[in-house]
């Protein structure tokens, strides 16, 4: 069974893109700003139509069987698509109702727990931090357990801690058998998460393979001895105690 196959051409933005994503895998579409990543996601989620070419998601054609596609997917766009005026719980209940599920209240409470938002659940989303919003956004995408999830730059604009939280959530998704198509401009994100990586450049896929396959494109590594310095990320995460539970002793009052 294949998750989706597609090939289409669109003037300028996409000039013939072919991708195959295996069911239950994480596929990263890597590219710089303006490479056309969002366009690909929008076409796959039936928000845009390709000029030519066809795309199938979960076996359904995105043009002729758009309603079936929408049943099978959920989209987490570049900007957290949450309702600021509603509370976190109300957002979840809203989506559960729109997916016509039984017992939306229980679904909402379960997801709040899973994404550590139970305490914030009754607060308006306008009061949430960027990371909380993103978690809520992803939680909203999981309602109804769609077999395919699109994450369009899920960590853009997040601080390192929130980023790790999102990564964790994505990994859990794939472990549960969900097919994830992730777009990102962060190389390490693709490296961390993806089973396969494709690089979209100027509207074309220029490479597509596993991380190891991509590494083989370059000449074999030379052995060099480099003094091991902590990265700034290591320093930052150590100082702020990045959810390590234990390191909260040394007077970290701000």
């Amino acid at each position: 069974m294949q998750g989706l196959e597609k090939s289409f051409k669109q003037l300028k933005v996409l000039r013939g893109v072919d991708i195959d994503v295996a069911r239950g895998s994480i596929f990263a579409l890597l590219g710089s700003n303006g490479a056309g990543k969002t366009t690909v996601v929008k076409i796959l989620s039936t928000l845009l139509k390709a000029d030519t070419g066809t795309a199938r998601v979960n076996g359904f054609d995105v043009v002729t069987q758009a309603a079936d596609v929408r049943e099978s997917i959920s989209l987490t766009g570049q900007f957290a698509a949450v309702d600021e005026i509603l509370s976190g719980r109300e957002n979840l209940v809203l989506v559960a109702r729109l997916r016509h599920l039984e017992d939306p209240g229980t679904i909402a409470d379960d997801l709040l727990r899973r994404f550590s938002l139970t305490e914030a659940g009754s607060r308006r989303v306008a009061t949430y931090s960027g990371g909380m919003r993103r978690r809520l956004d992803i939680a909203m995408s999981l309602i109804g357990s769609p077999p395919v999830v699109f994450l369009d730059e899920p960590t853009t604009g997040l601080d390192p801690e929130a980023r790790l939280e999102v990564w964790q959530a994505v990994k859990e998704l794939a472990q549960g058998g969900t097919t994830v198509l992730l777009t990102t401009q962060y190389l390490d994100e693709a490296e961390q998460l993806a089973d396969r990586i494709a690089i979209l450049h100027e509207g074309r896929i220029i490479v597509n393979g596993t991380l190891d396959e991509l590494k083989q494109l370059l000449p074999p590594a030379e052995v060099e001895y480099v003094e091991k310095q902590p990265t700034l990320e290591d320093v930052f995460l150590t100082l702020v105690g990045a959810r390590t539970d234990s390191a909260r002793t040394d007077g970290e009052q701000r």
Partner: protein
Amino acid sequence: MNKHFLGDTTVLTGRSLRHIARSPDTIITTAIMPIAFMLLFVYVFGGAIQTGSDKYVNYLLPGILLITIASGISYTAFRLFLDLQGGIFERFQSMPIARSSVLWAHVLTSLVANLISLVVVVLVALLMGFRSGAGVLGWLAVAGILVLFTLALTWIAVIPGLTAKSVDGASAFAYPLIFLPFISSAFVPTDTMPGPVRAFAEHQPVTSIVNAVRDLFTQQPVDSDIWTALAWCVGILVVAYLFANVSYRRKIS
């Protein structure tokens, strides 16, 4: 696909009604301008205006109600625009819902919000001495015309809500609608206006609607005005609905 239309519309209408309940200022600001006009015209200009009716506020209220609706619907465009900006619109569009329910939810919310604003304005008018001998049927007829007018203007508001490039653009279209009643029989009888202005005033929708509502309030026979008024409302409603749906289809495909 449309089997979920009613359910989805109900859920989404509940969502935007909650928005209104949490920012009741939108209803208050909608009502403030018409109330200010009403105070200004009744207590400042009204004494010098000869309308032939016993109390100027009785003459004025129908036009004020239309101004209330015209200023209220700009919030519909505003809310729709924010949904599009925020990305939640795309989330809804990528979900298995009846797609037209997204627009209908905003339209029904507009109707509820405007009816509340209208009730507020009528209550203030009553405090200012407005009286009507109209019975239940008369009030129902007035309510019916106002509902139709609200729906017509709301569908107009949907168009900039979907197509505007900025928040200002989304709500600016309402200004001409708010000022249309000034060149009509809403504030002064049209007989004193010079030829071309009078011709415009007598043949634009507001005059017939104002006259019909006024006749209902004063229990006069409504004669042909009510049919002209209904024809305008239904005509605008149909045309705006069609254009709004064309913009919507362009937006979602």
